[in-house]
């Protein structure tokens, strides 16, 4: 089967290396080198994760950052911002303070050479609207992550869409997280629950309900009625937090979509994602004319680290082998 012409590019969020970076078995430079080797040439960084001293970036760090990009054949693409509305124990950040926080993070993106900033899902629509002119002046797009359990018909997302359409700001848009397309329950998660002592019959109930795309709203209650404990409740809550929606739901929003967080939990030996059907997602992005980055976001480490060695590099390599196949790079 031939792949239609497209301009999709491959990248990686350094979030994906969190296990190795946390344990200091990979340095920031190592992560960027590995990304270049894998062919994930667009770099997405969480400054608060990878840059000690945040929010203060030294000129030396910035110089080193760009020297790594050149050395390893990579490009800065995106930064991920957080909005600490609960910074203070006794009060919420004001609207002005929230907008100032976003502006600070736009400045950081500019210094790092990234044109895209991921706005975390808790960023209120009024903060996006208030920060948009500053982002536009600085040539940066602020993209709201559409993260499970949210989807394109959810009121929180609709409020954001209203702002984006009403203002028509070129600086505002969406960053879909592919965790909104979890078609079947990630087995690394259910297997971890079993190792943690979950009741097998309740794990079956949870996984089966999810995989049937059944009603998960009352799962925690039913698990309680069936004698579940904290581990079972945790798994049931997970089932309410993953969602499956039709990937074509992205099509009507394609003009707003500037970046894709390619979440994954487990790349199997066959180089397919166990729970997220990328073979049906990538064609939708091609059909929609998406020309940004598919940015890997590995999140399986936390589910296997108790029993198995974590190898984020191999997991990301496999995801990019899959992307290369789906993007027709092998042809």
């Amino acid at each position: 089967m031939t792949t239609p012409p497209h301009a999709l590019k491959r990248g990686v969020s350094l979030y994906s290396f969190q296990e190795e970076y946390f344990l200091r078995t990979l340095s920031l430079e190592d992560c960027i080198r590995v990304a270049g080797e894998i062919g994930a040439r667009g770099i997405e960084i969480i400054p608060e994760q990878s840059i000690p001293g945040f929010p203060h970036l030294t000129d030396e760090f910035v110089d080193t950052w760009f020297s790594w990009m050149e050395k390893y054949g990579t490009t800065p693409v995106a930064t991920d911002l957080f909005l600490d509305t609960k910074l203070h124990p006794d009060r919420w950040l004001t609207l002005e303070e929230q907008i100032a926080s976003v502006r600070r993070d736009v400045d950081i993106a500019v210094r790092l050479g990234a044109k895209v900033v991921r706005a975390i899902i808790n960023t209120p629509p009024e903060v996006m609207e208030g920060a948009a002119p500053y982002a536009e002046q600085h040539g940066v797009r602020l993209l709201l992550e559409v993260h499970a359990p949210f989807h394109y018909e959810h009121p929180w997302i609709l409020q954001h869409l209203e702002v984006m359409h009403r203002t028509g700001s070129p600086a505002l848009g969406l960053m879909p997280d592919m965790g909104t397309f979890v078609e079947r329950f990630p087995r690394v998660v259910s297997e971890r629950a079993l190792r943690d002592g979950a009741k097998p019959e309740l794990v079956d109930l949870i996984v089966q309900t999810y995989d049937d795309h059944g009603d998960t709203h009352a799962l925690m209650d039913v698990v309680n009625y069936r004698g579940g404990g904290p581990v079972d409740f945790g798994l049931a809550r997970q089932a309410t937090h993953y969602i499956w929606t039709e990937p074509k739901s992205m099509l009507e929003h394609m003009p707003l979509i500037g970046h894709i967080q390619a979440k994954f939990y487990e790349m199997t030996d066959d180089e397919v994602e166990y729970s997220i059907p990328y073979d049906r997602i990538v064609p939708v992005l091609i059909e929609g004319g998406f020309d940004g980055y598919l940015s890997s976001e590995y999140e399986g480490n936390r589910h296997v680290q108790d029993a198995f060695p974590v190898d984020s590099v191999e997991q990301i390599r496999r995801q990019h082998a899959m992307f290369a196949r789906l993007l027709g790079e092998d042809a």
Partner: protein
Amino acid sequence: MFDQYIVCEENFRARDDGRPGGVVEVRMPYYRGLTLSMVEAVDLVLDGTPVPASRTTFTVHGNTYTFDQLPRTTDDRWEMGERAQLAFETDEPLTPGEHDVAVSVRLRISYMPVPGGGRDRKRLTLSPVSTTA
């Protein structure tokens, strides 16, 4: 997500200021660094006995804070994966050998409706020689 890495196995040691007590190194169970005002608690239970927060101090990259100071500390951070030193005082000097060390970290994470953080518990062997951080 990183609960099992909270308590560091290395460098569990007696205090070096002559007072009875010790130092345990701890990491934050989170995938990014956090401003210290959002670190609500780092609770220690030593050999089954809770150590009051008032008898502990918290040190990141050479800066030492009491837990009364942390809620107002918005200009310093606990970095991702950074080993912080949790120093504590006890009534009697720590005995040589193994101790049961349980640490619970509570974080205020703005996008979560419930407290973040995690807990870890390990058997640690007291370093025979006291060293500075």
